[in-house]
């Protein structure tokens, strides 16, 4: 990995800000759901903060992403405003989707979040279509297809990677390997040791990278995104990470290996990057504290905005089914 592009300090700080936003947002989601203020299914991305942060600093707002139900980290890193996100989580009319999509279907084209799917593997075929549109129009955009290790075993993975490679689509497949497909370990669901190795089957480059290492992840993302934008086709990135929590809020993850889980939590990538930026003299303690305080204030505002907003009126049942409102 010695020839990987390396992020400069300013980029690392931008990545850290996104990671801290994701971490604090996750903390708030747990609190808000546990206190009953919002009822929603919540799939925590805690532990996977580096991946979308390293990707997003290599993207513009015009670039597209598709993500999945465990996707608040991808959305926040791409720039979805927390206010709109929280209002959608709360099912309010002020949310990204007027409250009609909810946490598993956040859509925000303004920041390039085109599809969030609740179906494992379904981000990939649609990402190809967005990339095909870019190829047809020559608009120089790249599309990121996020999915988990579980999704690498569904048929859509195979169909999508084959088509993307065949058509040289400007798409990057990002498998966030958090070691669990719902309750099943990676080893119990996947015959190969590395998803990245599967890229060879599609004649595309495969990169298995430590997805919790900011520099390595940045480098892998940049190489793949540059390649896509240069018209050289897709890349499969397998970003190795670890899901700190159970599958969704309410699942304590008791089936997870305790020692392995503790090891991952002890190596919290957000705390690690903060410590490093401070020890390298990039940030002072006070700078880092201010970043957290600003985000906390932003989240306070976002949650208050969400909870103060109205629910959609019932005529929304008839709207957006088709272009023309139902009778």
């Amino acid at each position: 990995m010695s020839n990987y592009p390396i992020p400069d300090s300013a980029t690392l700080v931008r990545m850290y800000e996104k990671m801290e936003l994701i971490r604090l947002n996750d903390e708030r989601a747990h609190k808000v759901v546990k206190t009953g203020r919002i009822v929603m299914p919540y799939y925590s991305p805690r532990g996977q903060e580096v991946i979308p942060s390293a990707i997003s600093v290599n993207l513009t707002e015009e670039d597209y992403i598709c993500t999945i139900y465990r996707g608040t980290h991808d959305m926040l890193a791409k720039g979805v405003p927390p206010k709109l996100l929280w209002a959608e989580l709360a099912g309010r009319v002020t949310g990204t989707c007027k409250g009609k999509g909810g946490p598993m279907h956040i859509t925000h084209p303004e920041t390039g979040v085109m599809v969030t799917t609740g179906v494992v593997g379904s981000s990939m075929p649609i990402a190809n279509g967005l990339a095909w549109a870019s190829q047809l129009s020559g608009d120089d955009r790249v599309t990121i297809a996020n999915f988990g290790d579980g999704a690498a075993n569904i048929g859509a993975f195979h169909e999508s990677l084959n088509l993307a490679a065949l058509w040289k689509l400007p798409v990057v497949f990002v498998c966030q390997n958090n070691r669990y497909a719902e309750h099943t370990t990676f080893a119990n669901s996947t015959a190969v040791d590395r998803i990245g190795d599967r890229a060879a089957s599609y004649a595309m480059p495969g990169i298995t990278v430590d997805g919790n290492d900011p520099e390595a992840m940045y480098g892998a993302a940049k190489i793949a995104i540059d390649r896509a934008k240069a018209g050289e086709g897709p890349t499969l990135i397998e970003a190795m990470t670890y899901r700190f929590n159970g599958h969704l809020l309410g699942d304590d993850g008791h089936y997870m290996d305790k020692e392995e889980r503790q090891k991952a939590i002890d190596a919290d990538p957000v705390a690690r990057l903060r410590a490093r930026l401070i020890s390298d003299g990039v940030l002072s303690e006070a700078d880092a504290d201010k970043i957290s305080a600003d985000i906390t204030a932003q989240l306070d505002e976002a949650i208050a905005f969400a909870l103060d907003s109205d629910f959609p009126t019932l005529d929304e049942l008839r709207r957006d089914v088709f272009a023309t409102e139902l009778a």
Partner: protein
Amino acid sequence: MTEKMTIAQALNLALDDAMAEDPKVVMLGEDLADNEEGGVMGVTKGLSTKYGKRVRSTPISEQAIMGAAIGASLVGYKPVAEIMLMNFTTVAMDMIVNHAAKLRFMSGGQTHVPIVIRTMTGAGFSVGGQHSDYLEAWFAHTAGIKVVAPANAAEAYGLLLSSIDDPDPVLFIENMPSYWTPGPAPTRGERIPLGKARIAREGKDLTIVSYSRMANEALAAAEALAEDGVDTEVIDLRTIAPWDQDTVIASVKKTGRLLTVHEATKPFGVGSEIAAVVNEALFGDLKAPVKRLGGAFCAVPFSKPLEDAFAPNAQGIAAEVRSMLSLDPVD
């Protein structure tokens, strides 16, 4: 003499005209391009030569085909995706039902999926149980997708153009055995609006509602019945979802009798929905119970005598009408 055209020619012409008119119209599917002979039935012949990379043959990957169509449609393209056979929609149901049909609603109207899914089907081609099914009821049952089924060349042309224009996903069902049936040629550029039925034959004694190939069988039955003095009105729905309730209800209000006919199996079929709505609207005006005809409740069989008996035909339709009118059966 009126100019004649087959359904296959009319579809090709509609695709050609749509692509010439709007550079955002693109096509993808298995064997579509001329390198692969312009479709297994030749419906898309010549289009890839004329429009280049806007027409792409794909691997046999129905999920990937639908996903690519959906994704491109989210950002301004108008893809016409071909799923070669209607039975093959089953391997792309997640993309069609969970995504194409729902993204407009789930995004609160921020995105929409203006795609057309062209697919062919129909018994009568000796291809057995996984290549012949009419599955329109599944899609008509799904909020967010329209279902269209032309019965002749002029409809194929006018409805396909409207389907491509439409801002919502449209499943466009083509009857395979009648691809080469000639009929009056369409008027170039003329659209047939979605959601509007055609009164194919006016009559006063009984209304038959049908679509796709069965609409033609119903017409043939009506002509035979006319010789016995039975005056049947035949409605060709053209759009199955959303269907033209106003035209159907007005017709049944006039005739007092309704028979629905489709090739799909009868239970939980489109005919059942039409019967229910007509009963709700016209219970007191009906002179007879609403009746339904549909394909046998089995997989489409291979053996020729079984396949021939699978779907309703003109003779069976006429017999059903006579029974509804309490007329003696004819041999």
